């Protein structure tokens, strides 16, 4: 036990942030519920976990560092194709596939981060949009490698740890996706509650002031962007591995836009925002499209308008506001 007087105030502040609350523990316990309550929905649950991981990676750069990206699917797609091609040409072991995907997506993120860190706001939106569309066209025209619009053929994933086959019911898929999501959530949680995380928030609030107090803003953005790219790559790889397919859709603008919508829906800059957003978006989509396969996007639109008008900081932002008001009384 370290005596409290030797710990500085900022350290105490960061420690208080990273303490686990009962709600958080309850949330993660609840993620196990589908195994018992909805065993028929496990493949959906698995894709929700994957999308949540993807939203989490966007949250790091958008929610914390304030880097708006409309091309984040590029890294998701790079991860998806990397994992698919790795299983096709090297071997189908899933964990090593994840690492390769993370490495490649991370490298792509690192390379583009040098451009990203120079711009803000509208320019950045155009830039990331452009980079995302470029990545899409490259994947589209490299027909010999990616299979073009038919999707990548010949993805074969070995059983997890050599034991658990990816089954029709999605037991393995959900267990695997959930475990990876939790692992990276822990890492991300540690990251945003570190001095580095504070520096990112500083950049979001005032980019000009941060260098003035001695923070290397551009280096910070580059680091965060690279990490976010690698995590997005892992999410893409998970999707490829659990569905044994990779297609252009994984790298498309639609995916970049959807994940942004989820993050806005849930609340950016709060770690759980992306997770909640992904859960609500995916379940709403599944339910609405079950009712009306043609018009489900209409209801998603209504949902989004309602959330944005009534809860401008997303569902979590709104909830915490209500909670704060309630506890003040």
């Amino acid at each position: 036990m370290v005596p409290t007087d030797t710990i500085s105030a900022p350290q105490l502040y960061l420690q208080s942030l990273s303490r686990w609350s009962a709600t958080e523990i309850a949330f993660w316990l609840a993620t196990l519920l589908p195994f018992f309550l909805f065993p028929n929905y496990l493949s959906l649950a698995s894709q929700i976990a994957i999308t949540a991981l993807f939203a989490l990676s966007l949250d790091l750069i958008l929610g914390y560092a304030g880097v708006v990206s409309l091309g984040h699917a590029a890294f998701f797609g790079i991860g998806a194709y990397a994992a698919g091609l790795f299983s096709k040409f090297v071997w189908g072991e899933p964990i090593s596939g994840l690492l390769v995907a993370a490495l490649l997506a991370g490298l792509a993120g690192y390379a583009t981060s040098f451009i990203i860190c120079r711009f803000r706001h509208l320019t950045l939106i155009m830039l990331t949009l452009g980079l995302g569309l470029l990545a899409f066209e490259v994947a589209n025209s490299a027909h010999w490698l990616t299979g073009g619009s038919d999707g990548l053929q010949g993805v074969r994933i070995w059983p997890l740890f050599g034991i658990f086959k990816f089954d029709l019911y999605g037991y393995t898929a959900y267990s695997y996706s959930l475990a990876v999501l939790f692992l990276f959530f822990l890492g991300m949680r540690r990251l945003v509650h570190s001095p580095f995380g504070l520096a990112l928030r500083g950049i979001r609030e005032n980019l000009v002031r941060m260098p003035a107090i001695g923070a290397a803003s551009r280096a910070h953005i580059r680091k965060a962007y690279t990490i976010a790219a690698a995590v997005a790559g892992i999410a893409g790889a998970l999707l490829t591995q659990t569905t044994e397919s990779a297609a252009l859709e994984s790298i498309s603008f639609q995916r970049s836009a959807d994940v942004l919508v989820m993050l806005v829906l849930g609340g950016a800059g709060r770690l759980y925002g992306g997770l909640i957003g992904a859960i609500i978006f995916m379940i709403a989509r599944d339910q609405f499209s079950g009712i009306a396969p043609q018009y489900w996007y209409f209801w998603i639109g209504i949902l989004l308008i309602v959330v944005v008008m009534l809860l401008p900081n997303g569902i979590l932002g709104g909830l915490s506001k209500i909670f704060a008001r309630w506890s003040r009384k």
Partner: protein
Amino acid sequence: MKRSLFAGAALLAVVILPAGANAQIKIGVINSYSGQFADTGAQIDNGIKLYMKQHGDTVAGKKIEIIRKDTGGPNPDVAKRLAQELIVRDKADILAGFTLTPEALGAASVSEEAKKLMVVMNAATSIVTTKSPYIVRVSLTLPQIADTLATWAVKKGGTKKAYTMVSDYGPGIDAEGAFQKAFKEAGGEIVGSVRMPVANPDFSAFVQRAKDLNPESIFVFIPGGAQPAALGKAFAERGIDPKKVKLLSTGEPVDETAIKSMGDLALDRISAWHYDFNHKSKMNSDFVKAFNAEYKRNPDFFAVGGYDGMHLIYEALKKTNGNADGDALIAAIKGMKWESPRGVIWIDPETRDVVQTVYIRRVQKVGNDIVNVEFDKIENVKDPVKAAMKK
């Protein structure tokens, strides 16, 4: 341990449940009902609905129930998940639909693992049927059309030098490959080719390049929508006369909407396709009439795909006496032959792919209407890609 216990319990539940619920047969239809391809999904659906309206919803004592799922576009991962859910959650007996190739490829492994019949009602890439022994296709394969057109163009169309223009995406590249290969094999010469961006509104530069090479014919493959009209205008502006230079294509660039927006510019265009609502037969005119009465529009090849797909399912169920087991159904469909609105078609027992007549048509004025008129046909065309694989 716990995991395997639950897996076991779930498996047991699945084994027990269908035994009790035997009075109906559930068909899970996976299509693009929203997004860019929404209309194609809707037309397949119209075909399905019309068939069920005409033939009732009970076959061999079983009630047919349709469960529709939307993929939102060419998403293999979504299609695979929907197929899994349809089988695990909704206890579907048969999978059907599949507007786009990636959807069919995504669901293929599920049909193989679950041993369920999967009826492909559109997706036209050759390889689709090879991905699961339970897949059967009633629509077409793109090489079936492009290959036939190329051979016809050299042998009967009197053209030895062709230029190809295709959209730069999967189906375009497939069409280009099939056309060029067959054209050369028939003794023709490809004088040049170009791949155009999929979303390209201005074709004049590409058309000029084709014109400079002075080919006897130009083969075109572009997606439907606004592009056929834009390309038709570019041909006219650059002075390419369809009477002198043969403009060849598959059915999409000269479909009903495209001809309507092109008007007289579409005249004399030659195409190969497996279905047009102007096809002359009693069966087809009845079909078109019923379709118009129901949906206030003409059927297209998507609608025929849905209609024939349902026919196949109904007839197969009659043969198996209501047994929806994948192996029994697939055995029943092999070699099945019937008259469709497009003419007589049958299922190749070796490849489970459709064998049909390919019609060569020319756009002409009939009365006040500008329509595709069939003037030649090649019967019993099998998918050339799988035939070549066998050799």
